[in-house]
């Protein structure tokens, strides 16, 4: 009477971690059942219209939704992978039976191994009227905008300046929504500085040490009251400020979605650096229950790239256990080692410190010391991390030291001042003119001798932080080439307004060239002629 299907591997969650785990295991002959609650695969990836950071080997420089398409295509072609969409794992029972609700039936499976890649859920925030319609999690805003083409608001307040808060704010601007401002409770911006700069040059203010006190509105958000916080995050009296907006987007952090996991007697522990309660697991992503693996945000909040690699590690480890063919064992072992190295590299550098600290608390302090392989130049980006605008000292670091370099012709300027693992500019430059001294976490420097000003890097950079400058185009004007991802697109010879890094209009300019080919992949490269005195301030344009 009890029809139970014996299977080899069940993977729960069709996001980046689940997809890559399925591929890694299936490539070594493991029969996989990939269970996804939604009717489409890709998880949050499908909503990420921006280009990804990290190493080119892991799709860096490609837009999130394209990465999803690549992975999903591979899944469809692999006959070892059976995909169950619109299906939800209901229970993991003591007798190791897994129940799955699929096409309106509760089916029973007995898997040899289980990989939970259930991702994260958004943290909620306590402020007055926080349940008013129009108060959204950042995922909701992305879902409405990027998946269903529905505009969440005319004017929105963004709460939280982590990467998600900054990226979603930028995507809101692209969807034609006005971002009133980004507020951040901490004294400094949480996400990458390049994302903050993208917002500032669109005129979006970023207010650090601010939080939201109240959503205002009867049946829908009509505004918000924010206030200032002191250094120990306590409200400073009489700093209330009303912000007119018709939606509030909360991106105050993700926490691992461990609901399914906690049905088993898995050990979990609260690690604030990794987003909340996470499962204890070893470096092969296996938990204290044999053959029960985790991968991606459920094992600790990081980004999609590390989720993809963790998925590979989990998938390969299952393959090692199920596929007894000795021929493969060595190969799998090698791949696992490579993936672990990749992960370690990804977590290197100052930006990865929080994750490393969290992992150390569960005994995963990766042996190699990251810091010695990185250039140890010290420079102060505190102003940048508070305002999203690089200080003059920061800028000087990246400019040519001598004047006559400018006479050579156009040269690329990188406004990337924060060490984090990312190399599309280095790998993308056809003239090898950009280098990070062999470590993905170092800052990229342009070799002005080799650089021809071809501007390939301008559209390659995920942070839109590459610009090309030709100071002496004429004796009174200069050319500045910049990335532009908005509508309406500028046309050649059109006069446009020119904005500086704070988004204020500084002059008018004439569009000399618009490159919008396949390579640019929708990051239009615009060259505009400006009065020479503004050649270092021109960072954005506004098409009239």
């Amino acid at each position, binding site marked *: 009477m009890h029809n139970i299907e014996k299977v080899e591997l069940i993977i729960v969650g069709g996001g980046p971690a689940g997809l890559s785990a399925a591929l890694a295991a299936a490539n070594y002959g493991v029969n996989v059942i990939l269970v996804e609650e939604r009717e489409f695969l890709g998880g949050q990836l499908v909503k990420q219209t921006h280009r990804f950071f990290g190493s080119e080997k892991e799709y860096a420089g490609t837009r999130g939704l394209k990465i999803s398409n690549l992975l999903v295509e591979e899944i469809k072609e692999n006959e070892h992978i059976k995909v169950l969409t619109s299906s939800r794992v209901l229970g993991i029972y003591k007798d190791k039976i897994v129940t799955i609700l699929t096409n309106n039936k509760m089916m029973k499976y007995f898997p040899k191994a289980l990989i939970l890649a259930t991702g994260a859920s958004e943290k909620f925030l306590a402020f007055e009227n926080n349940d008013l319609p129009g108060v959204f*999690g950042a995922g909701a805003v992305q*879902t409405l*905008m*990027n998946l269903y083409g529905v505009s969440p608001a005319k004017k929105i307040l963004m709460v939280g300046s982590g990467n998600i808060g900054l990226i979603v704010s930028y995507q809101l601007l*692209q969807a034609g929504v006005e971002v009133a401002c980004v507020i951040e409770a901490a004294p400094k911006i949480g996400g990458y500085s390049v994302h903050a700069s993208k917002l500032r040059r669109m005129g979006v203010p970023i207010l650090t040490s601010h939080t939201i006190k109240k959503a205002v509105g009867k049946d829908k958000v009509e505004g918000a009251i924010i206030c200032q916080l002191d250094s120990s995050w306590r409200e400073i009296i009489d700093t209330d400020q009303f912000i007119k907006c018709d939606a509030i987007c909360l991106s105050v952090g993700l926490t691992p979605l461990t609901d399914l996991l906690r049905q088993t007697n898995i050990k979990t522990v609260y690690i604030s650096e990794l987003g909340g309660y996470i499962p204890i697991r070893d470096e092969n992503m296996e938990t204290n229950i044999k053959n029960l693996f985790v991968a991606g945000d459920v094992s600790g909040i990081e980004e999609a790239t590390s989720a993809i690699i963790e998925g590979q590690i989990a998938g390969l480890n299952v393959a090692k256990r199920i596929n007894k063919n000795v021929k493969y064992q060595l190969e799998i072992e090698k791949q696992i080692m490579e993936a672990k190295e990749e992960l370690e590299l990804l977590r290197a550098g100052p930006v990865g410190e929080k994750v490393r600290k969290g992992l150390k608390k569960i005994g995963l302090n990766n042996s190699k010391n990251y810091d010695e392989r990185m250039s140890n130049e010290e420079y102060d980006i505190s102003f940048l991390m508070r305002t999203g605008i690089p200080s003059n000292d920061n800028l000087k670091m990246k400019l040519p030291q001598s004047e006559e370099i400018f006479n050579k012709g156009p040269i690329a300027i990188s406004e990337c001042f924060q060490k984090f693992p990312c190399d599309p500019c280095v790998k993308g430059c056809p003239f090898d003119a950009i280098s990070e001294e062999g470590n993905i976490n170092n800052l990229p420097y342009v070799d002005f001798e080799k650089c021809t000003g071809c501007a390939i890097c301008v559209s390659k950079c995920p942070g839109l932080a590459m610009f090309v400058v030709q100071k002496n185009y004429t004796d009174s004007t200069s050319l500045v080439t910049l990335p532009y991802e908005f*509508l309406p697109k500028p046309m050649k010879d059109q006069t446009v307004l020119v904005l500086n890094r704070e988004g204020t209009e500084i002059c008018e300019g004439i569009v000399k060239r618009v490159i919008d080919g396949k390579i640019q992949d929708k990051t239009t490269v615009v060259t505009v002629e400006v009065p020479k005195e503004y050649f270092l301030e021109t960072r954005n344009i506004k098409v009239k």
Partner: protein
Amino acid sequence: MRIEQHPILEFKKGEKIRFYFNGKEMIGFKNDTIASALYGLGIYKLSESKKQKRPRGIFCAVGHCSSCLMTVDGIPNVRTCITPLKEGMQIETQSQEVIKDA
């Protein structure tokens, strides 16, 4: 309010889907979920909270928070943010009377 044009994405509006919201006929599009169709039509309040009858609408839009529950074709507590819209669906705001007797 629908996004007409977008620098990165194309939203080719699928064919229309007719559905009913509290009895009124409405139009959504293929690939819409119930919640995204309603939000696109400017309907933000999807239900009332259990005790204080506070207005509730979409919060997480990925099926986690249960703040978008509505009655669909007579079935209560449907998570409309992850339920695909279908032709002829009857959608109703759900305000549960909590029985407080004796």
